[in-house]
C-alpha cells in the first residue's frame, strides 16, 4: 500500500528530525536521554487523553471538547486524596503514602468514569440528532468543569508535596540523574497502549467498536445495542483521561490550566494520527510528546518562551495544511 508507506516515511522523517534537533541541541548523551524521556513521558500522558478522544470520535462522531477537563479533574482528585486537608483526607486512615497513592489513582479513575457516564447519558444522548450541538455542549461542559474546579479547589495551583516510593527515586545513566517516576509513567502508558490494542483486536467489544467506526447503522441492524456501546466507550475514555491526570499529578501538580493545555495537545495528536485511528493516536502521542520536549529544550535561554506551548498548535496547523486526514487517517 503506497498510502501506508507514505505515512511510515513521514513518521520516520518527523521522528528523525526531532531526534536530530534534540541531539544537536544537547551537550551530552545524558542531556539527550533526559529530553527523550521527558518527551516519552509527555507523549504517554497525551495518549491517555487522546485515545478516548479518538475512539469516541471514530465511533460516535462526537468530538469531546471536555476530554481535557477529565484529565484535570483526575489530577485534582488524586492530589486531594493524597494530601492532608482538602475534601477527602486519607492521611490518618492510610498512613502509607504508596498505598494512598494507589487509592488516590483509583478514586480519580472512578470520578472520571462517573462524570463521563453522566455526561454521555444525561447530556449527550438527547443530542445525537443534532451533532453540531453536541460539540457546543461538550465545549460548555469543559467551561463548567473548569469553573467547578476553581470553585472547589480555588485557582491557586497545587504542587505535589507528599512523596512516595517511585516518585522519589532516581537512576543514573551517562552521568545524569533520571526520575524513576517518569520511566514508570512511560511504562504504564506502554502497557495501556498494548492492552487497549489487544482489546480492540481480540475482544467482542473491540470488534463491535471497530465495526461501529465503519458503519454504525449496520452494527445496529445486526442486533447490537450501539447506544450501550457508546456509553461504555465514552465512560472508559473519560476514566482513562482521569487516570492520566492522576498519574501526571505527582509531576505536574494540579492546576486549572491542565485541562485546556492537554485538550489542545491531544487534539493535535488525534488530527496528526488521523481521526478515529487507534494506531495513529498512539504514534501521534509519541511524536507530539517528543516535539514538545524538544521545543522546551530549544526554547531555554531564547526569546521563544512560548514555543513549547505553541508547538502542538503549529503541528496541528501544519497537518491540516499538508495532509488533513492525518498519518493513518482514511480520506473520508
Amino acid at each position, binding site marked *: 500500500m503506497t498510502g501506508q508507506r507514505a505515512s511510515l516515511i513521514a513518521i520516520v522523517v518527523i521522528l528523525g528530525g526531532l531526534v536530530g534537533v534534540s541531539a544537536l541541541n544537547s551537550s551530552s548523551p545524558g542531556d539527550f536521554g533526559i529530553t527523550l524521556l521527558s518527551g516519552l513521558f509527555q507523549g504517554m500522558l497525551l495518549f491517555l487523553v487522546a485515545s478516548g478522544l479518538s475512539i469516541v470520535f471514530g465511533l460516535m462522531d462526537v468530538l469531546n471538547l471536555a476530554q481535557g477537563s477529565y484529565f484535570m479533574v483526575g489530577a485534582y482528585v488524586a492530589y486531594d486524596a493524597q494530601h492532608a486537608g482538602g475534601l477527602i483526607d486519607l492521611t490518618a486512615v492510610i498512613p502509607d503514602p504508596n498505598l494512598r497513592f494507589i487509592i488516590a489513582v483509583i478514586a480519580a479513575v472512578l470520578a472520571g468514569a462517573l462524570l463521563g457516564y453522566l455526561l454521555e447519558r444525561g447530556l449527550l444522548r438527547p443530542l445525537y440528532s443534532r451533532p453540531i450541538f453536541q460539540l*457546543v455542549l461538550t465545549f460548555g461542559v469543559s467551561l463548567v468543569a473548569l469553573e467547578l474546579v476553581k470553585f472547589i479547589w480555588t485557582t491557586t495551583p497545587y504542587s505535589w508535596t507528599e512523596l512516595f516510593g517511585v516518585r522519589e527515586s532516581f537512576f543514573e545513566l551517562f552521568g545524569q540523574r533520571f526520575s524513576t517516576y517518569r520511566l514508570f509513567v512511560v511504562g504504564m502508558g506502554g502497557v495501556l497502549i498494548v492492552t487497549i490494542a489487544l482489546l480492540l483486536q481480540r475482544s467482542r467489544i473491540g470488534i463491535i467498536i471497530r465495526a461501529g467506526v465503519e458503519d454504525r447503522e449496520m452494527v445496529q441492524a445486526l442486533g447490537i445495542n450501539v447506544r450501550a456501546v457508546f456509553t461504555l466507550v465514552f465512560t472508559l475514555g473519560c476514566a482513562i483521561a482521569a487516570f492520566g491526570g492522576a498519574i501526571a499529578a505527582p509531576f505536574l501538580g494540579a492546576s486549572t490550566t491542565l485541562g485546556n493545555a492537554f485538550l489542545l495537545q491531544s487534539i493535535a495528536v488525534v488530527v496528526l494520527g488521523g481521526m478515529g485511528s487507534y494506531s495513529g493516536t498512539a504514534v501521534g502521542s509519541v511524536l507530539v510528546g517528543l516535539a514538545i520536549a524538544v521545543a522546551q529544550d530549544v526554547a531555554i535561554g531564547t526569546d521563544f518562551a512560548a514555543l513549547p506551548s505553541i508547538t502542538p498548535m503549529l503541528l496541528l496547523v501544519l497537518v491540516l495544511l499538508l495532509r488533513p486526514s492525518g498519518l493513518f487517517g482514511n480520506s473520508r
Partner: protein
Amino acid sequence: MKTMQAPNQPTWRHWLRGNAFLFILLIGLILFPFIVGALTDSSPFGVPRGDRMIMRGESVRWQSVLIEVYILAILAMSYNLLFGFTGVISFGHALFFGVAGYVLGLMLEFTAIETGWALLLGALAGIAICGVLGLVVGLVTLRLKGVYFAIFTLAVAEMAFIFFGRWQLTRAEDGFAITELPLWLDPSQNRLNFYYVTLIAVVITFLFIRRLVNSPTGAVFKAIRENEDRAQSMGFNTLNYKLLSLTIAGMLAGAAGLLQVILNKKVGPELLGVSYTVDPLLMTIIGGIGTFSGPIIGAGGLHFLDVFLRDAELNLGGLVIDIANIWALLLGIIFILTVIVFPFGIIGTWQRWRARRKPPA
C-alpha cells in the same frame, strides 16, 4: 417575498409597519441617555471640571453599560451570521475581536501617525486584516468536515492568545493603555458621542446582516446550513459561500474589537481570551440561533444579568457566595441547559409559538 396587501401604500410606510417595534426601540435607545439623565437628575455629558469632563453620574454610567451591550451584540451578530445562518461553528471568534483590537492599539500607540489618521488607518487595517485572516483560516479548513474548522479556530485563537500574552513589545500579559484618542470619540471625555457611534454601528450591522441573509447569497448560506451536500448538488460552490460568510463575520467581529479597545482604552491579551468566543456563542444560542434580533436580545439579557448580579450574594443555608465568583459557572450551566432544553433560544421559541398560534393563511 411580495405581499399582496396594500400595493398602493408608499414603500417607506410599509417598511415602517414591518419594523415598528424596532423603530420604537431605536428611538428609545437614542433618547436613553437623556431619559436616564432626567430620571436620576444627572447630566448625560458628565460633570465639567475645568476644561475637562469627569464621567460621573447615573446617565454616564448606564451609557457605558449599553455601549458594552452594543459591542457584544455586534460580536454576537457576526457569530450568528456564521453559525446561525451558515451553519459553520467556530471556537475561536475571539481571534478576530482581539487581532483587530491589537492592530488599532499598535497603530495609535506605536506609530508616529497623527491621532485622527491613526484611528482611521488602524480601524481600516484592523478590519481588513480580520477579513484576510478569515479568508486564510477558511481556505485551510472549510474544505474539510466542520469539526476540523472548529478545532482549527480553537487552536489558532489559543496560539494568538499565547503569542500576544508573551509579546514584549505589547507589554505581554499586562497589555498597554491607549492614551491617544481624538477628543470627540474619547469615552472618558465625550462618552455620549461614543454611545451614538456604537449605537450606529449596531444598527448598521443589523441592517447589513438582514439585507445579506435575505439576499440570494443569504439563501445559499441557509441552504448550506440545512444540507451542504444538497446545496453543492444544486450547483453552488459552497466553499466560496462559506468563505464569504466567514470573512464578513471576521470583519464584523473585528469591528466589535475596535470598539472594545476604544471603550476600555486598553489593549491586552484578554481580548483574545476564550470569553470573547463563549459570550457570542452563548448570546446567540440564548437569543435564538439564526434569528435577526436573537443575538441582540441575548447580548442585552446576559450583560444586564451580569451587571445586576455582579454585586449580589447568594445565601445557601448560611453559606454566602458572591455571585461574581460563580458568574462564569452560572453562565456555563445556563449554556448547557439552553442547548439541551431550549435550543431555539428566546426569539426562536417565540417565533415558533407565534407560528403555531397563527397558522399562515
